[in-house]
Structures are given as structure tokens and as C-alpha cells.
């Protein structure tokens, strides 16, 4: 079972991560890896709340179905953090405003795509070393 520090706050990992909302979805891009992701409308609701870097406890408290979110949140944080889309907020750094508005957790699904990796993560003319990965260029 995943554990989460309820006081540790996370923020969207800008500027390495950019995103765009539209037509009931959000497209998220990690510029460092070249991977991009799609969030549906329900998942976007959670993503939007990450903009204010809330603590897990604050996020759960503001949610009308707190039990559902509490059960899923550790895995969601792990997934987002694993893809480099969120990063832990430095406890000694500036503390942004926390989310306070009520909302309902409708589920979370992160669709991942890698077919632009060669353009975003690595220009196609410079192939990466298959074991070391980018930015280690393949030895000719």
C-alpha cells in the first residue's frame, strides 16, 4: 500500500511541464522527457487543484467524497511524480495559496503517449543510446 505524507505539498512541475485545457480534456507535456499525457474532464478537476499546490490533507478536506480521494490519492501522487509532472514543494520556500473551494473527485486516469519522443525529447537525427538513454548519444 502506498503511503503519503499528508503535509507534504506538491506543485505542477513548471516550467518543465506545460499544459493546455480544451474540449473537456487537458493535454500535459513533460518537456524534459518528450512524453505527453491526456487527462479527461474528471481528471482535469484534480489537476486544476494542483495549480495551487495544496497539501494532500487540504485537498482531501475540500473534497465532497473525501473517502474516495483518500483511497486513491497516494497512487495518483506516485504516478504524477513518477512522470515528473509534479514536484514536492520546498517547505522552506514560498508557500503558494492552498485550494479551498469544494469539489467532487470523479476519478483519475492519466493516458501516456510517447510518439513525439523523438522530436520533443531527442531530435531524430541524434539517436539515443538504447541503454543509457537521453542525453547519452549512441556511439556510432
Amino acid at each position, binding site marked *: 500500500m502506498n503511503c503519503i505524507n499528508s503535509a507534504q505539498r506538491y506543485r505542477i512541475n513548471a*516550467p*518543465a511541464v*506545460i499544459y*493546455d485545457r480544451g474540449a473537456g480534456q487537458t*493535454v500535459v*507535456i513533460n*518537456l*524534459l522527457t*518528450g512524453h*505527453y499525457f*491526456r487527462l479527461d474532464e474528471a481528471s482535469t478537476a484534480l489537476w486544476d487543484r494542483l495549480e495551487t499546490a495544496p497539501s494532500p490533507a487540504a485537498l482531501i478536506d475540500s473534497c465532497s467524497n473525501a473517502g474516495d480521494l483518500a483511497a486513491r490519492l497516494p497512487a495518483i501522487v506516485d504516478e504524477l511524480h513518477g512522470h515528473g509532472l509534479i514536484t514536492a514543494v520546498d517547505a522552506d520556500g514560498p508557500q503558494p495559496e492552498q485550494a479551498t473551494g469544494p469539489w467532487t473527485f470523479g476519478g483519475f486516469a492519466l493516458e501516456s*503517449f510517447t*510518439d*513525439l519522443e523523438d*522530436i*520533443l*525529447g*531527442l*531530435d*531524430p*537525427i*541524434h539517436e539515443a543510446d538504447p541503454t543509457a538513454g*537521453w*542525453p*547519452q*548519444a549512441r556511439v556510432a
Partner: protein
Amino acid sequence: MPAGPARLPAAGRHGPLRIAVCEAGPLTPDRDAGCRAVADLISAARGLGCDVLVGDESAGALPERVRSFFPDIVLLSRPGLFARLHGSLADVPAPKVFFAHDLHHVRLGLQRAFDPTLDPRAADVMRLVEDFCFRTADLAVVPTSAEARAAVTAFPGAAVVAVPYFAMPTEPRMPRPTGPTRLVFVGGAAHAPNRDGIAWFIREIWPGVRARYPRASLSVCGAWPPGLTAALQHPGVEFHGPLSETDLALVMRRSMVGIAPLRFGAGLKRKTLDYLSRGLPVVATEFGVEGLPQGVHGRDAAGVLVRSHPAEWIDAIDRLVGDAAAWHCLSREGHAFISASFSPALHREGIRSILVSLGVCP
């Protein structure tokens, strides 16, 4: 001792202008046109007397190397590198220039029509990335005026200029070759428009050319993996792999026609400029002549017969092979056009105009 170039001074301090040019990997100008454009830029900047740091991201610690160079300008090539590196160079007090090469999201959008395996969202995602690059950069540089206009429309607020990306050396105009008919294509398989274009040409056009000229051959010059060359095998088609400048010149001199059968793409096509600079007449699609300053969509360009359908291509090749006067006319026309529009001196002036517009030199 010969005098070096006059040193282009930095504004507001003593010493030459310092430019950090950053690429994702080692420069391989003999293998792809993008690297050639960056190599030409470096040569022009050095020709203007600038100090140039050539930064290769794959060698590691690039932000640190750029920072310790104390550049007056940081130039970041291609969207992937710009997007990755821009944040880590935020503390470097120098304008960041995005060397865009082309509008990738336009190219991906067009590619989708010919490549159903490409994710339908790819163009939109790339557009988002390019939006970041164009609007974050202090200046974005594209190869053609048409692309500059398109970029300003697509990314309001972006500062965009067009300069010639390539310095084409003045080559002597080649004589009309004798012997069996030979065609040449320059380009590697890593670039999707080349992959699609050469497959289309071999499938749809080459059998018709061979029917009229049974001894005809096609030289494909550039890096193509064995799997692809095996799939594209056809009588008369030869894959030479990447060639040195000397060997490429030899293949060009033996060729009657240069081809640019691109069905999608964006930006200036160096292969077309390369053929023309040697006096080699060209048959191309509209995408093969895209970006030429004269803007010739739908009709012939200087030194180029622009054709769309396979039957038109076969007739155009037939005309150049069978009509020596037409061949010489196009050869002269194309050669003169390149000398007048893509000389190293004009290219260097274009680079100087970037530096002046940024206010980093007088």
C-alpha cells in the same frame, strides 16, 4: 600573416560579441540539413568576428558551460532543446534565440494524411510546445518569410524574423552529363518527408521512368537503414549511404536530374538548393520548392519543374533527359538564382541582422 575578420564588438563593453550556439548532439552537417544550417550559422558568426561556443547537450553539463562562457546571446536550436534548456538558463543575462528550423506542428499535421500510425493529436501537442518556444524566446528565427508570417499568426506576441538558413557555396555550373540516365536524391530516412517521398517516387514514378529509359538509375544519398532499403529495392535504385562532400559532388556531376518528391513538409529544402547550386535541374513537388523566396507554389521555379502527379513527373524527367536546350536553360537559371539569393555573403548579412535587431552589437 593574413588579417582575420573585423571583430564584431559587443554593445556596451569591450571585446568581441560572444554567442553560445546549443544543439542536442554533435553536429553532423553532412548527414542532415538542420545540422548544416547550424554549422553555416556558426561559420557566419565566426566570419563576423564573434566568439562562438558550440554547446552539445549530449556531452553533458551544457547549462554550466553556457553560463561560464558569459554569452551576449544564447541560441538554442530546435524545439526539443529549447524547451528542455530554457528553464535552466533563465539566470543567464542574455537574450535567448530560438532557431526553429521549421514549423514542426505544420509538418506533423500534413504528415498525418500519409502516415495513419501518427497519433492524431501529435500536431496539436507539437503546436503547444512551439507556442511555448516561440512566445518564450526573445527572438525566434525561421528560414522563410512565409513561415515568419505563419508563426506570428499562430503565436501572437512572438518576435519572429526570417533569415536565409543556408550559405550555398558557389560551385562551378556542371556540364550536362553523358551516358545512361541518372537521377539523384539527397536526404536521409530520419526525416519523415524523405521516407515518404522516396517510397512514393519508387512506387509511383520510377517504373514509368524505367519503362522509357531501361538503363536509368536513381542514386539515393543519405543514411537509410537496411530494413528500409530492402523494402525499397527496385531495379536501378542504388542506396549510397551518407557521402562525403567529394563523393556527393561526383554523384551530382554524373546525374541528369535532382529530385525532391516530397508530399509534405515545412521549411526550406536544402537538397533543392544544393542541386541548383551545381547547375543540376530539378523536378520537385510543391513541397520540394517550399520556402524559396520567389514563392512558386503551383508553377515552375528557377531551375525547377514543379509537378504533382506521377505522369507529370515522368514527362518532366523525360523532357530534361531528351531536350538538351531545356536542360541547359534550367541549369543556368537555377545556378544564377542560388548565386543571387543564397550566397555566403547574403547569409552572413542575415545573421548580422539578427544580432543588430537584438541590440547586442552596434
